[in-house]
């Protein structure tokens, strides 16, 4: 057993406090593991990492994104062409109609009688007979105005199509292209 003890002693003495120099690669790999190089992984990972960036950068990014979105929507709105207005007054005889309702119909048919008459907008007629439809796209339209219920105007005038007509098949077609239109509508007196 003495030989065995010699082995133990020899190894124990040799390796007590034994040191060896590891290759530098070990530290390089370890450093890479502890502090991996940031790498681009696509837009969504960039978005996910935004809160980890500095708060100033985060707020700046959100602000910039908002401005870009607003500018984009403004461009789309201007490009859409829905920026024409139809305005005018409703007349009950020689006087302006005091309150009522104006209806705007879009016409897609080419020939009368129209099958595609579609009410797309309604607005109030004020006490001065004034009405306005804003941001209208290009196309063909008809307007109908009715006096307010139980008003003096309703007693004396009928709901009428532009202009002074009972039947939409004969109503004047309003062509909206690239400019604002002023359309005064006269109501048909009751017989």
């Amino acid at each position: 057993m003495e030989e065995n003890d010699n082995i133990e002693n020899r190894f124990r003495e040799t390796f007590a406090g034994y040191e060896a120099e590891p290759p530098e690669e070990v530290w390089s790999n370890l450093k890479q593991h502890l502090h991996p190089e940031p790498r681009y992984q696509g837009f969504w990972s960039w978005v996910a990492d935004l809160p980890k960036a500095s708060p100033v950068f985060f707020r700046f990014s959100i602000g910039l994104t908002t401005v870009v979105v607003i500018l984009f929507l403004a461009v789309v709105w201007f490009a859409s062409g829905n920026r024409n207005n139809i305005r005018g007054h409703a007349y009950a005889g020689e006087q302006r109609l005091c309150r009522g309702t104006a209806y705007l119909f879009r016409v897609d048919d080419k020939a009368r009688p129209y099958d595609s008459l579609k009410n797309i907008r309604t607005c109030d007629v004020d006490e001065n007979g004034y009405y306005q439809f804003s941001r209208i796209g290009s196309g063909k339209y008809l307007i109908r105005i009715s006096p307010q219920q139980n008003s003096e105007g309703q007693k004396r005038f009928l709901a009428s199509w532009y202009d002074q007509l009972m039947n939409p098949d004969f109503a004047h077609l309003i062509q909206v292209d690239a400019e604002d239109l002023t359309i005064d509508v006269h109501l048909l007196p009751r017989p």
Partner: protein
Amino acid sequence: MISDEDMVKGCLHRDIRSQEVFYRRFAGKMYGVCLRYASNKMDAEDILQEGFIRAFGNLHRFRFEGSLEGWVRKIMIHTALNYYKKHLKFLQEVEIKEAMGNTTLYEEALSKLMTNDLIMIIQSLSPGYRTVFNLHVIEGYTHVEIGLMLGISDNTSKSQLFRAKRAIQKELDKIMK
């Protein structure tokens, strides 16, 4: 020189300079440990790297109640044990008297051998022999402790140690011839 406490604090804040100081302070000794438990240098480097990753990851658990070096060393040893877990096969217990073979006069050989030769001899052992030999002879663990660490009986640990020493004797015989 930065104190252990400041160094650990820096490491906990992921400060790369503190991490490098930590690594440089212990790398040499721990690489020495890894070389004894590994089959070759490449495995030793892998164990060293893995061990440091585990040390940095568990540094918040170190309470400064013992030596930092001892704590890191334990992590390295456990990392090495895990590294070879699949290969750790322990043979049946053997009667030590029965297994005792012919001994040779190898003291001369032992005295002539350099540290690197001894490392190579240890690395040539099977993982099971090598592990028990390291834990008992170099680290000073008892057979009962080794049994608990490796999930074997203390008699198996003794038997493995005996076989390990016999294998070393054979290597020394070869060198003598």
